[in-house]
């Protein structure tokens, strides 16, 4: 019955191959991608229900039992994150299809689908992997696909940003192999469940070194300050649906890796001061960066960096309450950040520019777009009825309950960041929605070209972020996908009670460790 565990990995990867073969049949390709992701979503929900009711689900791949062979494990945390991730990936896919339909003559669509499916397959494998080396392979599958996606149809800016992104990710991957090699050299296993037991027997210094190395690896992947510089440089240059899915999934997989390895392999009894300091730095530097930005997507990328800090905060507290908050925050942030990027894409689509200072006088976004932006923006800032408030409340309560000086410092930084996020969102909203002139006039007549422009060379093709495209109305699919995401965000807030309890059980599993270990290792006996 646990064969179902293989589906979130197997289906997208097989479909990616089929999709590549079908690259001349665009409609079939689209239907295949949507169909596969919908099936995977159903599988993920099944896994979540089963993991919650019957404990971690384990599948020994290839017939070798746990410590010998590679196993796939779905416990509450991984199943929950998998479900939310696939849901977001599906919505973003629909959005991307909508955007591709509205822009005929898009040559990159054929490569987009296989790479996208491979990306979701990699994300699935990363969440389900029960083995450190397999986790590395999952990251490579996922990142390999993301390198292709970020450099799709590349002009100058994209080639440059893609290079930055690729090099940074590759460096962290190499550090990851180094960590795997050192772990294996020290303990003689790469199975996470078995490592958990053996790492505890290692000398203190060696254990800290391995813990720090893994922290750096996942810190780069999840854009933790001071390892975040690559993110705001590279994400905004990609096409907006791709930025949305990267922002939602890739950094969160990094956070998941951090949660999993640090709690399972390197348990500690009290607050982790180093991570607390890093969390404060991430919170503040990220949001201050966001306030300084002029480009919509860059601004959102900086808030993404900043809000990674909330998840680090939860992990730094290292107790059930803190981890519950961190898990809730990851779930909330996956949905909300993707919605924001999609809404921003709609705004850019409508006004024809991503630069805030040029939005003045452009065609204003419609009321629906305004609403679609407002909901996730308020949620991100943590305004009460939305999911951000619930996740933040859980974190704040955890910090207050902890009661130490570090916890209060974290609390202060988090509160300040929430206000600054609100300020950044308000500024974005004012520029994009209030200062645009009402009326149906298209951008070109409302904003005549400056007199010098005929003499100057034509806009360079690399400048995608600021390319002047005519104002258009977004297609139904784009609006529909964004609406679905916004509604998911609201549903998270409505279902806050069950979700919080589920997160708490997941956090409890993380700290107890035995649930995971016995579930994986008892397979040995059968």
């Amino acid at each position, binding site marked *: 019955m646990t064969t179902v565990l293989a589906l979130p990995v197997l289906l997208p990867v097989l479909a990616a191959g089929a999709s590549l073969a079908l690259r001349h049949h665009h409609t079939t390709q689209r239907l295949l991608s949507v169909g596969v992701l919908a099936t995977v979503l159903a599988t993920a929900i099944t896994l979540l229900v089963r993991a919650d009711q019957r404990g971690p689900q384990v599948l020994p791949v290839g017939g070798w039992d746990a410590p010998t062979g590679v196993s796939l494990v779905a416990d509450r945390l991984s199943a929950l994150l998998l479900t939310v991730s696939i849901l977001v990936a599906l919505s973003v896919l629909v959005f991307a299809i909508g955007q591709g339909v509205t822009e005929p003559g898009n040559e990159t669509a054929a490569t987009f689908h296989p790479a996208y499916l491979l990306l979701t397959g990699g994300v699935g494998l990363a969440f389900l992997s029960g083995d450190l080396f397999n986790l590395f392979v999952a990251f490579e599958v996922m990142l390999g696909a993301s390198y292709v996606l970020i450099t799709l149809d590349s002009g100058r800016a994209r080639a440059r940003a893609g290079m930055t992104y690729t*090099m940074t990710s590759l460096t962290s991957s190499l550090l990851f192999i180094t960590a795997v090699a050192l772990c294996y050299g020290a303990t003689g296993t790469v199975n996470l469940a078995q490592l958990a037991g053996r790492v505890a027997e290692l000398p203190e210094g060696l254990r800290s070194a391995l813990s720090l190395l893994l922290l750096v690896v996942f810190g780069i992947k999840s854009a933790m300050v001071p390892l975040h510089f690559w993110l705001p440089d590279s994400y905004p240059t990609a096409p907006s649906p791709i930025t949305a899915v990267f922002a939602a999934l890739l950094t969160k997989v990094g956070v998941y890796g951090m949660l999993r390895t640090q709690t399972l392999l390197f348990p500690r009894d009290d607050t982790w001061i180093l991570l607390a300091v890093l969390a404060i730095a991430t919170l503040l530097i990220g949001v201050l960066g966001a306030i300084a930005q002029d480009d919509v997507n860059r601004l959102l990328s900086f808030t993404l960096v900043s809000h990674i800090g909330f998840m680090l905060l939860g992990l730094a507290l290292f107790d059930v309450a803190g981890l519950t908050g961190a898990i809730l925050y990851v779930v909330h942030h996956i949905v909300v950040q993707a919605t924001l990027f999609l809404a921003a894409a709609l705004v850019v689509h409508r006004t024809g520019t991503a630069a805030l200072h040029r939005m003045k006088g452009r065609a204003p976004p419609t009321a629906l777009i305004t609403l679609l932006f407002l909901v996730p923006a308020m949620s991100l800032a943590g305004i009460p009825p939305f999911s951000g408030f619930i996740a933040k409340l859980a974190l704040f309560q955890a910090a207050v309950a902890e009661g130490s000086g570090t916890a209060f410092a974290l609390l202060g930084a988090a509160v300040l960041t929430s206000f600054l996020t609100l300020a950044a969102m308000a500024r974005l909203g004012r520029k994009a929605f209030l200062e645009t002139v009402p009326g149906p006039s298209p951008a070109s007549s409302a904003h005549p070209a400056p007199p010098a422009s005929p003499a100057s*060379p034509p806009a360079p093709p690399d400048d995608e972020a*600021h390319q002047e495209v005519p104002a258009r109305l977004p297609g139904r699919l784009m609006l529909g996908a964004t609406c679905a995401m916004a509604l998911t965000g609201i549903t998270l807030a409505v279902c806050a009670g069950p979700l919080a309890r589920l997160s708490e059980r997941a956090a409890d599993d993380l700290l107890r460790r035995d649930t995971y270990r016995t579930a994986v290792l008892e397979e040995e006996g059968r």
Partner: protein
Amino acid sequence: MNTLDATLATVVGGLFAVGFFLLMQRSLMRVVLGFVVLGHGTNLLLLSAGRSGDPPIVEGPMRQVDGYADPLPQALALTSIVITFGLTTFLLALAYRSWRLTGHDEVRDDLEDRRIGTARERVDAGERTDAGERTDAGERTDAGERTGAGERTGAAEQTRDRREGTAAEEETPEDLA
């Protein structure tokens, strides 16, 4: 728990040092080479995580398990070699594309970063800079860029970057002011 012997440790350490040094260069070609060298370093480290010197597992009469080399690090290293190989080809393609598009293989600074960093100065400088920049922007050609890359002096690099920054953002000064 295995221990590295001194030679292997020195070689791995040396490869890491050279790899990271090359990764921090401006030239894309060196960065790619840095990745390759660093990849070799990690693969060697992975390989050395098992015991070395024993025979591999082969068919035939069963010997004691202790007598064989640990096959797992070899399998891991093989996987990792395949992955690094694939990604190296991708990197080379990307570097080639970047060279085709820009005419040189340097990693450039981020325009938007620079624009935000200098927004204040540009507003302060006002009209004079505005006129000067506009001429610069008009003159910008691919040939000019290539010469700039050839000179590779700090000053030339700065000028080029500034020129590109303003060329892409030519309406900016009056918009901000």
